[in-house]
């Protein structure tokens, strides 16, 4: 009996449905081609999207479309979305079938105004279908305010990891020795979404049934199992000697990485003592506070004092000082990575921030992040500390001013000011910044402030 429901249970795919593609993008959706045959274009569903995959056509050729009616479901680099028709008419010809990929702005279908023009449109689609790729070249201008997509260094999420996958190891009495898999409807749905093989999951539900939390636990366990403990780079499921094309998300990562080369960046490192932070973490961990949230909070508080580090350069001529401090945190998810954003991290209290973080990670895994939840970051954090990495260097995501790479906090022998030698936990951070707007002295001052906050973290909990 579920007397108290988790709030995270409801928003599933319905939360993904966008009302409509906003006006500015609308113009790229439909251009008047001929008097009465319009092309339906692959819309830009996010500022970083350059191509989209057709998940499904909700209408068939010959169907009548009303203005505002959903026509097609498109998978962008972030999420699946419904795309609506901006005009009335008939869906005359589908030019990109389900499963097909088309660049943003290229025609994916033709819309005829009247039924009579369907045949004409069909003929047109055949003649033009060969030439569709050229449309790509027409739209190369990347929007500068592009979302911070992905830093080079992937960070695994710091959510509680793989706790007790073997909770209820009872074998289901009816599973006939593993021949049958008994999983609840939601567990099956989740397994499909998270690409978890139910055959490998041990159920903890009634009579050993696999329930949703078993699948979630298994999904978290997989990346951890494949991490530093086993340095074997070959993850299960990868066939050696093959060439595997990028997924939409990996394609977006690749483009962003190349684009980052046009930004003049530099790096400044700092070593921060974390004993006080570790003690605080230990104290409030039971209240659901995560280290990621603590680091984000500390960073945000430091940024309050150094707004320039929270700025970015959009046009090469000016500083854009962001009004809010939104900390994006890189998360590795199946087959790629994404940067959920903790909005107003300076203002939100640490407990809310931790809850928010957990929710974002859950959504990210289910590929249900809304665009504002991953593309509004103003400063990015990438943390590989949990893998024992002591220092690394991150690539600046396009559209932001700085990213901070956080290494592991490790016991080190240090000489203190009073001439003694002692043991302290120390963590190395390394900030990559856009030198057009952020200079060395800015970063140095910012890091000094950050170190102070971390070394005396009482402000983090208010």
């Amino acid at each position, binding site marked *: *009996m*579920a*007397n108290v*429901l988790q709030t995270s249970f409801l928003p599933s795919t319905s939360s993904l449905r966008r009302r409509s593609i906003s006006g500015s993008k609308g113009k790229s959706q439909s251009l008047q081609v001929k008097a009465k045959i319009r092309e339906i274009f692959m819309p830009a569903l996010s500022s970083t999207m350059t191509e989209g995959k057709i998940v499904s056509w909700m209408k068939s050729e010959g169907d009548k479309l009303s203005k505002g009616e959903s026509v097609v479901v498109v998978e962008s680099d972030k999420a699946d979305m419904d795309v609506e028709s901006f005009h009335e008419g008939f869906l005359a010809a589908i030019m990109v079938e389900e499963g097909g990929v088309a660049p943003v702005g290229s025609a994916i279908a033709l819309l005829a105004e009247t039924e009579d023009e369907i045949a004409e449109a069909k003929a047109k689609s055949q003649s033009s279908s060969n030439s569709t790729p050229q449309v790509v070249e027409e739209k190369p201008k990347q929007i500068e305010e592009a979302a911070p997509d992905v830093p080079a260094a992937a960070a695994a999420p710091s959510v509680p990891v793989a706790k007790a996958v073997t909770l209820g190891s009872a074998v289901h009495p009816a599973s006939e020795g593993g021949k049958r898999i008994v999983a609840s*409807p939601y567990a099956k749905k989740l397994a499909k979404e998270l690409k978890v093989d139910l055959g490998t999951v041990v159920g903890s539900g009634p009579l050993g049934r696999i329930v949703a939390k078993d699948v979630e636990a298994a999904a978290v366990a997989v990346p951890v199992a494949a991490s530093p403990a086993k340095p074997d780079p070959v993850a299960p499921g990868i066939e050696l000697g093959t060439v595997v094309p990028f997924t939409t998300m990996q394609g977006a990562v690749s483009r962003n990485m190349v684009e980052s080369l046009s930004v003049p960046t530099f790096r400044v490192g700092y070593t921060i003592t974390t004993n006080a932070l570790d003690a605080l973490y230990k104290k409030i961990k039971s209240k659901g506070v995560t280290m990621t949230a603590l680091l984000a909070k500390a960073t945000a508080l430091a940024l309050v004092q150094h707004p320039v580090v929270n700025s970015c350069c959009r046009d090469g001529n000016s500083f854009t000082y962001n009004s809010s401090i939104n900390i994006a945190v890189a998360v590795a998810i199946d087959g790629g990575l994404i940067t959920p954003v903790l909005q107003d991290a300076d203002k939100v209290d640490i407990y809310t921030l931790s809850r928010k973080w957990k929710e974002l990670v859950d959504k990210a895994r289910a590929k249900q992040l809304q665009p504002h939840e991953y593309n509004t970051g103003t400063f990015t954090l990438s943390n590989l500390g949990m893998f024992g990495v002591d220092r690394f260097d991150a690539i600046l995501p396009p559209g932001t001013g700085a990213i901070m790479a956080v290494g592991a906090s490790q016991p080190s022998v240090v000489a203190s000011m009073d001439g003694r030698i002692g043991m302290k936990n120390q963590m190395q951070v390394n900030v990559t910044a856009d030198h057009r707007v952020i200079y060395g002295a800015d970063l140095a001052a910012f890091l000094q402030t950050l170190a102070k906050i971390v070394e005396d973290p009482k402000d983090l909990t208010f």
Partner: protein
Amino acid sequence: MHSICFQATGVPGSNYIFDSCSPALAISKPINLRFCGLRKEAFGFSGLTHSSSGRVHFSSRGHSKKVSASAESNGSPPKSFDYDLIIIGAGVGGHGAALHAVEKGLKTAIIEGDVVGGTCVNRGCVPSKALLAVSGKMRELQSEHHMKALGLQVSAAGYDRQGVADHANNLASKIRSNLTNSMKALGVDILTGVGTIVGPQKVKYGKVGFPDNIVTAKNIIIATGSVPFVPKGIEVDGKTVITSDHALKLESVPDWIAIVGSGYIGLEFSDVYTALGSEVTFIEALDQLMPGFDPEIGKLAQRVLINPRKIDYHTGVFATKITPAKDGKPVIIELIDAKTKEPKDTLEVDAALIATGRAPFTNGLGLENVNVVTQRGFVPVDERLRVIDTNGNLVPHLYCIGDANGKMMLAHAASAQGISVVEQVTGRDHVLNHLSIPAACFTHPEISMVGLTEPQAREKAQKEGFEVGVAKTSFKANTKALAENEGEGLAKLIYRPDNGEILGVHIFGLHAADLIHEASNAIALGTRIQDIKFAVHAHPTLSEVLDELFKSATVKAAASSHGPVSEPVAV
């Protein structure tokens, strides 16, 4: 009446009621309309054919025809009657008939062996609406995305099962006492006990163990309703294998419940259970879920009501055996392929809800005393709801309304039929147009419909040689829907472009059940699109969805806007 009642289907959760009608509706003929929804023409509506499975086991009356002879001899029609009208069964149908009878000046009695209100009030539409009201609110509170879009912040929503169950029960009691009081206040005699027909115009009633009373009436209406239909092989224990009767008491909220049948009842309960935290598995005999709905509405409903929720399904399968949970074992459901009859799968769940439709409750009615044999339990009637005997002759002064005749198993249809019968016995000939009766499913969002589905309309069009037009509008374009942040929805109009006749309207979206009446009234009154499109709707309201729908239809210019058919009669 504000709600649906459960609809019977012979096959688990399938066969929408309209499947059975070979519509002989001739709206194009000029007629005089005096009452909404009551028509003068015959309407070939055989409700008996839609139960395609022979599994209803209520045909035990077939062997006792002899009795009627003797009954006739000692039961010759009395000269003076105790009542003008006796109604057997005080459900929504009987209640509607009783109220109208009093209005017409008839001395009326109603016999009820159980509780006043029947299925609808006690075990159907009414308590289920209470549960659905709760599930709607839970859904809203849990939808963080939705709340945030409105700028609201709500911390974790929870519920108290007993509190929810009490709400449903209290609502049923309240409506029941309203119904009882309204009849008492009007002077309807409520006779307690099981009613049995003993001869023409003669009924006995009485409680078990008490002497029977015999009363006579000029006319008798059978309105005994229906009970949940449980297919063979399914063992109902009331705890883990349940019907809607048990489910409405909400004695438990299982983690995982299988719902057999994806018609109205199953769909509404899936809405309730998933909102309260259960996971649901549908078992549907036909190849697609929600088989009764217009296919386009069904497709959209599946995208919204099934796919994003914690629901999975097996289609094209029969549940041949369902064993309740006992001795630490779960509920076990054996599935076979509906076509090949090969064993397909075995499910183990915490509970199973049998929502395979409803079977008529006509056992022990004494129909043999008037030489009537039920057909799969249904009382055979003609289009004027007059009972037909074994020889195909009409039984004088005997009528049957509601679920017991199987024409259209909805509470408000029963009530409309009752009113139609009272009209007839008070000297006015009437035939109810069943195609003007709306139906609704109270999921979130709601589904509603009236008239024909698109495939039915196209079939009829092909037979009769006319064109079919389809118009659609989306809730996404409606200001009020967007203000509520509930833009998901579609309204669909099926019509004749040549004369503007409305053949069917289907709505999926916010408050669809309330919106359908503009369309059902238009069908009942014979209003044409070219006329109704000039009617004004308040702005901004959800009703504008229908306004836009009518306006988006293209009626050929030749269709006169004030033809004889569309002219409403002033009363």
